[in-house]
């Protein structure tokens, strides 16, 4: 009896590995292998054109730490997260709560807010670049009409980052709303009813029932948004196409700088080192999420 059973098990394992053969090859050759190879490259002076690629230890990381453009890119990236996440979540949650209040047109509103999320990013970025134009853009035209001073937006090193962040918030708002709506609908109505019986209402219901019970959704939203902002590239490159990451590196992100280092200046070693820094940041945030989410939620 045990012999055919073993054969059955072996046969099934054989089938499993037959099915997994091509995918395993893919994940090893296209994902894991290149990740290690990237770390390897980061320890070498790796100019695409020059034939010699000497081992230099941690020199690329030291060069990055002393490179004002990289430091600026890293600081900017953190600023994008710190500005973008709170605004994006507050707006997303507010719209989701409002959508829950209404009975008619809920689907229509939800779809309209969701449109930017499915819109091709590059096309949207160019539309926004034009909207922000200093002397020929509709936003400044509106400001002028209501008698406010014109703003340089993308032409100002101080404002440009916020202008780009606004476009990304616009793009991801619908996604956040849908996630929050699902989270809100999962909260049992009895909690609200019980609290209403106790005389609580409005803000207190939101503060003491909605927010705590929405916690897993909030954590997901923070982590998802943070990873999006940490990998910012397409929007910045297209909205500041003439001086990518400018003006005066005011919108530069880590990924855009990686692209410039690696594919415009061919310094693959430094570029790979910068991606390793990014990898550590994303890994840290993901692990933090797992820790926070694995804590049991106490009602």
């Amino acid at each position, binding site marked *: 009896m045990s012999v055919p059973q073993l054969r059955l098990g072996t046969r*099934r394992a054989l*089938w*499993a*590995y037959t*099915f*997994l053969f*091509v*995918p395993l090859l893919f*994940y090893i050759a*296209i*994902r*894991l*292998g*290149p*990740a290690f*190879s*990237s770390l390897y*490259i980061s320890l070498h002076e790796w100019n695409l054109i020059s034939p010699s690629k000497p081992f230099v230890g941690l020199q690329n990381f030291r060069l990055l730490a002393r490179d004002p453009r990289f430091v600026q890119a890293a600081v900017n990236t953190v600023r994008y997260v710190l500005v973008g996440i709170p605004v994006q979540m507050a707006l997303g949650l507010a719209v989701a709560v*409002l959508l829950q*209040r*209404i*009975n008619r047109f809920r*689907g229509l*509103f939800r*779809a*309209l*807010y*969701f*449109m*930017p999320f*499915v*819109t*091709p*990013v*590059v*096309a949207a970025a*160019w*539309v926004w670049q*034009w909207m922000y134009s200093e002397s*020929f853009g*509709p936003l400044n*035209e509106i400001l002028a009409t209501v008698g406010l001073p014109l703003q340089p937006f993308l032409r100002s090193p101080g404002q440009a980052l916020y202008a780009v962040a606004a476009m990304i918030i*616009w793009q991801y708002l619908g*996604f956040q709303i849908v996630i929050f709506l699902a989270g809100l609908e999962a909260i049992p109505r009895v909690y609200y009813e019980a609290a209403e019986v106790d005389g609580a209402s409005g803000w207190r219901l939101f503060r003491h029932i909605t927010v705590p019970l929405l916690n897993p*959704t909030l954590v997901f939203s923070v982590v*998802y948004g943070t990873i999006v902002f*940490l*990998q910012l590239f*397409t929007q910045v*490159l*297209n909205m500041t*196409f*003439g001086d990518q990451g400018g003006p005066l590196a005011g919108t530069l992100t880590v*990924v855009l700088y990686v*692209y410039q280092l*690696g594919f415009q200046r061919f310094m*693959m070693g430094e570029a*790979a080192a910068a991606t390793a820094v*990014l990898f550590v940041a994303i890994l840290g945030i*993901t692990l933090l999420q797992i820790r926070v989410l694995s804590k049991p939620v106490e009602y």
Partner: protein
Amino acid sequence: MVPGAGVEIRRRDPRTGLAYLTLAVGTVLVAFPFYWMVASALKPFNEMFDLRLIPAHPTLLNFAEVLTRTRFPRWFGNSLIVATITTVSVAFFDSLVGYVLAKLQFPGRGFIFVMILATLMIPTEMLVIPWYIMSSAYGWINSYWGIMFPGLMSAFGVFLIRQFMSGVPDELLDAGRIDGVTEFGLYWRIALPQIRPALAALCIFTFLGNWNAFLWPLIVIQGADMRTLPVGIALFSGEAGSSWNLIMASSALAVLPVLAVFVVLQRQIIEGVTLTGLRS
């Protein structure tokens, strides 16, 4: 409390009216860039800098110019090819791997799952440099294969499908085995139809993701003929100077088909976000 009472109270609440108003204002703000894009695309060049909200002399010439003067149709076709093939590949391989990891018992299963899951943490940016070196060594630069190969499978899809496959009852598969269904048939004919909504969501997001992909295509594409739509639009717009009528027309040509698909598949797409978002 009577179940209907709460609804009754809310309907009379004046704050509900305020909610509608706020949402409507928000919608106008969200939709404005779309309106601006279409309105500007319909303006002749000499009206571009008037900043009128409604074109005085609307024209379709900008669209005609983009379609004939640039290789827009070709870029559109390239994106269609790349996004379709990657979506089919992801749907097939991810669902197969998800099925195997959820439903077959074999040594090394846990290890393989963790290994695939671990690749989720690697950001694309970290991989583009080795991919580029690899592509230039094997002559993949500026080819469809070069654009597509990194996206042929997705660890996220495996993770998602595996979760849904776990919900497929074992009895169903065992019944199939007794009926003499092959191992591949068990996956293809019995398990796969059970997880259709998840598979549909995965397909939609894979297609959108590849349709919009920018960083890797920008790196690997070198000739104007191989550009995908995002790369084509970016480089065309960069060269168009201040011909914003043409830039807006090309943007509109890229955006409107996607929005049309969205209107048709709206429910599935939004439910797909809920489905996939909450699972991850």
